[in-house]
């Protein structure tokens, strides 16, 4: 029973964390709305938030990576490949973003001369990344719906405490 409640608490934490991650991601997606400074600082804030997201799913990553070459359901295998692509494109997005930074890094005293290669790479990965995120969310849509349902059930059930 304690194990189930721990799993529920973990799921609740991950669900709330993921909502925060999505909100932050949308905020970073629209530099023309937020301005370049907010875009860059929010992107830097996105790094630790994403790292915690990945670390909280560490067990799944290790388990599936270990079994990747053996028998795995197709959906799980696809999820893993998608996650690897997401991670790689995120790393490139952040790297190229840092190398064309005109607000955050200069504010920290690091002067950068934007290179056309990194600008074009940043634009390309910025186009690819939201689509991959959309697919990632869709792949976990059942879990998202289950979390929303369980939260609603928990709110409707009167507390015994």
């Amino acid at each position, binding site marked *: 029973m304690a194990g189930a409640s721990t799993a529920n608490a973990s799921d609740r934490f991950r669900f709330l964390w993921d909502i925060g991650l999505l909100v932050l991601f949308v905020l970073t997606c629209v530099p023309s709305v937020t301005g370049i400074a907010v875009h860059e600082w929010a992107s830097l804030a996105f790094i630790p938030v994403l790292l915690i997201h990945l670390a909280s799913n560490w067990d799944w990553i290790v388990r599936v990576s270990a079994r990747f070459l053996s028998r795995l359901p197709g959906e799980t295998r696809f999820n893993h490949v998608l996650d690897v692509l997401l991670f790689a494109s995120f*790393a490139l997005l952040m790297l190229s973003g840092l190398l064309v930074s005109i607000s955050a890094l200069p504010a920290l005293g690091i002067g950068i001369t934007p290179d056309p290669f990194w600008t074009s790479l940043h634009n390309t990965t910025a186009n690819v990344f939201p689509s991959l995120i959309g697919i990632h969310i*869709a792949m976990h849509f059942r879990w998202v719906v289950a979390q929303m349902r369980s939260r609603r059930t928990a709110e409707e059930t009167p507390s015994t405490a």
Partner: protein
Amino acid sequence: MKTLRRAFLILVAGCALGAAMLPLGGSAWAGRERDRRGPPRRAAPADTVEQGTRRPQMQGRRIGLFSHFRAPSPSRLADTYRLIQVGVIQMGVPAGLTLLVLGLARRKRPRAAP
């Protein structure tokens, strides 16, 4: 503590991936680009970081699939439209298509593999 240690490991992996990509840009690529474009123009004295912020790609206008349709002068309406573009077109369409494919695949195979 365990989560932080794992997060640090992931950060190291990301940094390693980024570091592996670094040689692609910088001097080697810039050299090829310079060869293609000819010698660089001398920057005007006023060409500072402040002026650089006014460059369209630096403002993030090219970020997005359909950003070239965007009016050059930003307005609140265009910014709202941009927000909807990101949400619906860039994330929503792939998500919708994935849900469709998943739904079709699960209808063929009602019981998921254990």
